[in-house]
């Protein structure tokens, strides 16, 4: 286990470094940002001078070496637009909004899907299956940005029950969480349902019935743990994606998350913030992946981490 973790951590570091390197060169390839800062009628010389002062006229490799050395010291630089705060801090202060939204939506989506899939199999009901799969698919076929706008229309504008935007308290979570959770619901229902169906014809299930276990108990305690495995990979990827910032949902609800800060930084060519933001996104993926692998080995003794 320890060996596994060490190996994965080394891999993770390499992945993150790759991401940062690509981000660095892609950003620089899009041009020097001095001109974007001087919006009203600066001369070419003034633009060039600002680029010089900010260090964007130096050879690319020299800039990269400085950047890479900084990364190894844990210094990701600061925004050239606001040097008073380190870039990583600007991103980190968005994490509570992003993480709380991602985790709440994820947990609610998964729990609802679990409840739905279990009820389908406990009651052996085709009608329930049709309801959840069809209903969920219908929801999924509406893009999140449109669903979010509709939800705001109904609950904020017409009913006046919930805030339409912002990050002000528990009530402001409802609409964005609803948007994300219901959007992912059917994905988990489908995976769980087909996994449970597959399990139901396995020998160990017949044995369980033979031991006199009730149908509900067989589904919940025998089939479900086995059915969870295939869902975990997909759920992990989804969770990591959400933790990296649900850009569209954040924009619809003016949610101050990581995705929002990243998009703004890209459009302003604020390289330090883009790099810090991508670092966080990459870390999220890497960490969630490791957690999923460890969970696999816990849930399924056949999986050995080596």
């Amino acid at each position, binding site marked *: 286990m320890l060996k596994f973790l060490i190996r994965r951590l080394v891999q993770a570091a390499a992945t993150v470094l790759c991401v940062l390197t690509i981000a660095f060169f892609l950003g620089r390839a*899009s041009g*020097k940002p001095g*001109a*974007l*800062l*001087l*919006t*009203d*009628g*600066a*001369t*070419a010389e*003034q*633009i060039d*001078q*600002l680029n010089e*002062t900010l260090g964007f006229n130096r050879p690319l490799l020299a800039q990269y070496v400085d950047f890479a050395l900084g990364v190894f010291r844990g210094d990701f630089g600061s*925004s050239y*637009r*606001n040097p*008073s705060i380190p870039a990583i801090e600007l991103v980190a*202060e*968005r994490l509570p909004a992003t993480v709380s939204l991602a985790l709440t939506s994820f947990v609610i989506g998964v729990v609802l899907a679990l409840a739905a899939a279990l009820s389908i199999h406990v009651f052996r009901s085709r009608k329930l299956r049709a309801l959840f799969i069809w*209903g969920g698919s*219908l*929801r999924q076929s*509406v893009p999140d940005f449109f669903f979010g*706008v*509709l*939800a*705001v*229309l*109904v*609950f*904020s*504008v017409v009913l*006046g*029950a*919930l*805030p*339409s*935007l*912002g990050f002000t*308290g*528990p*009530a*402001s979570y*409802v609409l964005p969480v609803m948007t994300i*959770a*219901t959007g992912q619901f059917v994905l988990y229902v489908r995976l769980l349902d087909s996994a449970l169906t597959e399990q139901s014809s396995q020998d160990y299930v017949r044995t369980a019935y033979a031991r006199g276990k009730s149908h509900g108990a067989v589904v919940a305690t025998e089939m479900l743990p086995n059915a969870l495995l295939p869902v975990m990979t997909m759920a992990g990827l989804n969770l990591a994606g959400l933790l990296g910032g649900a850009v569209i949902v954040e*924009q*619809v609800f*003016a949610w*101050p*998350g990581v995705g*929002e800060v990243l998009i*703004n930084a890209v*459009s*302003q*060519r604020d390289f330090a913030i883009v790099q810090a933001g991508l670092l966080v996104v990459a870390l999220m993926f890497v960490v969630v992946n490791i957690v999923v692998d460890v969970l696999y080995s816990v849930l399924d003794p056949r999986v050995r981490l080596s």
Partner: protein
Amino acid sequence: MKLRYTGTLALLALVGGLLTGCMPATTSGSAKDSQATIALPAEPSNTDPIMTRSIAAWNMYYAMYDGLTRITADGKVVPGLATDWKHNADLSEWEFTIRPGVKFHNGEELKPSDIVYTYSTILGSEKSTNRPAVAMVKSVTAEADNVVKFTLKNPFSAWLNQVATIGIVPQDVYTKEGDNFVNAPVGTGPFKFSAWQRGVSYSLERNGDYWGDKPALDKVTFSFVGAEDARVSGVESGTLNAGAIPPNQVPVLKNSTQATVISSPSNGSVFLGMNSKAAGLEDVRVRQAISLAIDRDEIIKGLMGGLATPNGQLVAKGVTGFVENFPVPTTDIERAKKLLSEAGYTGEPITLEYATVGGFPMSAEIAQAVEGYLSKAGITIKLVGTEQASLSLKMANHKITGLYLNMWTPSSMDGDVVVNQILAGGPEDYAKDPAMAKLYLEQQAAPENQRSDVFKKIWELNRDQAYTVPLFTPSNSYAASPNLAWTPSVDGIYRATGVAFK
């Protein structure tokens, strides 16, 4: 729209009901009479008035700081921290008499040395994006009798507009705080800094000791809301009291009882710029044909919902340099075709670059309409859409290869910067016409009452040579709470002092 998606809505209500059952509903942001929440489409990265010059930040600057002059909501230049001013004959020396008894938010009195300090710090700071705006200052000194004197490197008729955009900071506080000044800023303006919750909002509270017009409200909060839909529904649901909306959202709100629409003329000018040295465009007849082929009225009616005025000059009404009754270019497709055939144009493709995201409202739709008109005249257009930052970088770096669609909104409310940038030596000037350069200098040295005549010659030369093709001036439209008593400013920058409730 609501009716068409009843099925989805029913499902939504079902799921929503399940979720909301366990959460307390709050009525957030219902407008109390002493405070207002206003949506800004973008958050400024920095709000340091020395270091950062940006349209987003001016919303804060005009609330928290004063310049020597002020630009009012209707675009007029009026006394600010200076009560009076005079200049020498060739407009290169300006003396401002400083208003006595003005206090900074920390209680200290404003001194002429604070003004000298503010300008000297900008001039001495290589990273300040205000620096190019005051680069013409040779020296700034505090004189006897509360006078501050600027000596400029060249005559500059627009200096009064320029000083309005520079907020004055207290020397002792700024020297002590430096980069951290943004976190506890101090100015002389009608509002004091209250809090900046990054990514969310910027709050201001009334400065009870303000020397000028007192704010109507105790508190004004700028809320950062990037998505247009979110601004509309934010106002309708009462979370916001006002927010800018694009023209295509105006009809949607026409019948709303929860929001009103306020539209008013802007200081913006939408135009087709071009590299007039590029293949195809180097022939003046082709350039003129482009202007003749475009039906401005139809674009305004069809795409802008009538919320724009056709224009034949590069600045809007209200901006210094706007010439009353200057003719709007005509549409004449036959003449356009004739000019094209005279020029020997045979369908070589010309690129038209425009912003798909981050640009001015409707820019992508307008670019497509322009492409339609031009192809009707026989011009082959290759549309190239990018995000605004990429387009801005290309414009600023002199890298345009054909046509481009853009809008200029001079926050100083003076045409000087527009002419310089696009026609006279700036990064978007491809023609490098010596006659234009001469007119530009003439305009800079012209006394106030003669500038209009020179601008007229500039717009005429631009029309005859078609170096750029002015299209129209759009209105700014806002969704606002029905009980909000507020008139938008011509420059699109909020004046927090003027926000009140009926």
